């Protein structure tokens, strides 16, 4: 009996903790949703549960007055290209590192991983001048190229770790049957590594979506902005005045992204632990 009561108290305590944490998690999220439905644009007069419920901010985002849809389109372009490109490039690199002998194989990836830990602020000055020289400043292409190059070390390390767990017997058997280098890559490695490639694609889709620092330096004209830069400028200039618009604009991106994350989180975690710990 005593044992049973003790267990009951414990379970209740656990539920209580989870309830408190849930409130802490939901509070800012619900607050934002409430904000976006408030009338007027001032943060000061707004309240958690809107007194005057309105969707004027959402309407405004889609009106001709705002560039919101253009930014949305730009972000989708950048994210899609970076996601697709990064899967191709990193799987090439990871295949070579996992299965072949060549100069620089042993330490190459780690050197890049370590070099990349140097802060990027100064790099941005260099990249700015470089993009200017080759005429890619203020273009989405320039931005995409930088993202593609920067993601390689970490993701290649992740994918290589996953490739290493695929038994070599498989590709040796295929080779005996006459498969070439690319054939083994295409028909054996890629299908088996789908989970980690999905992780890479997802990461690289999300990362450009909400990176604001690099695009705010590379992109200068408003019609080239990505979502993060555009949204940040909403509140950067007149902080409290446009906050409700910012809230509405953020919700329209955050909801689909959160849905994708929650839907795919199981694969994300298994991919990360498999690639990350065996790399």
């Amino acid at each position, binding site marked *: 009996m005593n044992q049973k009561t003790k267990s009951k108290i414990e379970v209740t305590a656990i539920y209580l903790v989870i309830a408190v944490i849930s409130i802490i998690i939901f509070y*800012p999220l619900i607050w934002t949703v409430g904000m976006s439905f408030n009338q007027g644009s001032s943060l000061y007069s707004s309240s958690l549960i809107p007194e005057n419920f309105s969707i004027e901010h959402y309407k405004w985002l889609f009106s001709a007055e705002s560039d919101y849809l253009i930014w949305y389109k730009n972000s989708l372009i950048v994210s899609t290209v970076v996601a697709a490109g990064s899967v191709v490039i990193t799987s090439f*690199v990871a295949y070579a590192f996992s299965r072949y002998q060549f100069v620089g194989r042993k330490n190459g990836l780690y050197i890049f991983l370590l070099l990349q830990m140097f*802060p990027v*602020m100064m790099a941005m000055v*260099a990249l700015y001048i470089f993009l200017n020289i080759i005429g890619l400043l203020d273009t989405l292409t320039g931005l995409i190229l930088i993202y593609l190059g920067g993601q390689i070390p970490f993701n290649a390390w992740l994918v290589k770790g996953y490739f290493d767990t695929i038994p070599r017997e498989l590709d040796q058997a295929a080779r005996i049957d006459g498969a070439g280098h690319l054939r083994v890559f295409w028909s054996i490695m890629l299908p088996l590594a789908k989970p980690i490639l999905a992780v890479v694609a997802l990461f690289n889709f999300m990362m450009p979506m909400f990176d604001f620092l690099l695009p705010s330096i590379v992109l200068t004209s408003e019609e080239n902005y990505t979502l993060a830069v555009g949204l940040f400028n909403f509140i950067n200039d007149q902080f409290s005045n446009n*906050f409700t618009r910012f809230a509405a604009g953020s919700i329209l991106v955050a909801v689909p992204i959160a849905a994708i994350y929650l839907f795919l989180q199981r694969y994300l975690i298994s991919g990360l632990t498999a690639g*990350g*710990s065996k790399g």
Partner: protein
Amino acid sequence: MSSSVRTKLAGKHNPTLAMLLSIVFAGFGQLYNRRYLKGVIFIIIETSFLITVLPWLNYGLWGLRTLGTIPGTDHSIRLLVFGVLSLIALIILGTLYVFNVLDARKQAMKIRDGWKPLPFKETMRTVYDTAFPYLMTLPGLLLMVFVVIFPLIFSVLLAFTNYNLFNSPPRHLVDWVGFENFKNLISVDMWKDTFISVFAWTIVWTVVATTLQIGVGLFLAVMVNDPRIKFKKLIRTILILPWAVPAFVTILIFAAMFNDEFGAINRDIIIPLIGGDGLPWLSDPFYARIAIIMIQTWLGFPFVFALFTGVLQSISKDWYEAADVDGGSRLQKFRHITFPHVMFATAPLLIMQYAQNFNNFNIIYLFNEGGPPVRGQNAGGTDILISWVYKLTFDTNNYAMAAVISIIMGLLISGFAFYQFRQTRSFKEEGEI
């Protein structure tokens, strides 16, 4: 002596001669080896290089050495960029040249030892086999050279110049100043004080925020994993929510919520519960620091929680049953079974969490732009090294000093990561084909 005699007897083919010839001009050695196609290709490459790239390379290296000589005309920073690019080009070409020389020597030795050239098709095959991994890594390598290596060299070099707002091109020329900036950082009071206080806060921030998010994540993962808890799936989804919502958005929302005058935290929680005028979350360094540590915990624990949950589910029940037989307490089971399992499986990813927070620019900048300002310092109260570097670069344009601090940070963090990587098994190499 005897070996050279044998050489002449074997095939009268001299590797040293082949080597010397290809040093004189790329491709000559290959011609001597009677590998005509290869030789001609090398000759064409070197000739076209001499005609097109050499003048440009020469200009770049001149610029790198002098950083320009005529103020107003020579743009020092452009010259520096050109210089770094030509340096990289030079290294790539040098590598090709060394490869050409070694190739000539190797082939000559083979010929000397009585090697017969394979049919053309076979040759192409072996070339393809050895070149394949290089071909696969080439696109990635090229991108990394321009996106990772080139900016890194550029910023390291900047640390040894006097490039700042008052001495910037095109009006002025930038000069090499050696270790002057490093000396200033430790001898000029304003720099020294700021550096020490920012550095100390960076360490505190990294350790406290990351440990907190790992601790909360572990605590919740173990609790939710308890077999007596129901609705596990729903609870897990809720707890992962902060990870799913983009951090960029949540940080800005928190910044508004913590606002001293009209933020929801003061208006809806602190004032009704405690009274007074609310806490100065944004204007007092102490409270601002507390706030960002709490926000980072909110943002960071779900990832760790999800990670640990995955590992916890994979621990075999046998371990716990064996512990039960031996009469192990719950704490003992946690210490000797759960904890080691979880840490072993996730160590590299946890180390990365520390590294990420050390460089976590977004939260510091988006929350309060590193503020509030602090007297006698040129960094704000919540500025960590990276956001300080940002301010030095983009607000006060003190590029040289920003580069110095970047180098120090980079060395620290990569040294730490290198040490940790070596400790974990992820540095292990596996077998080859």
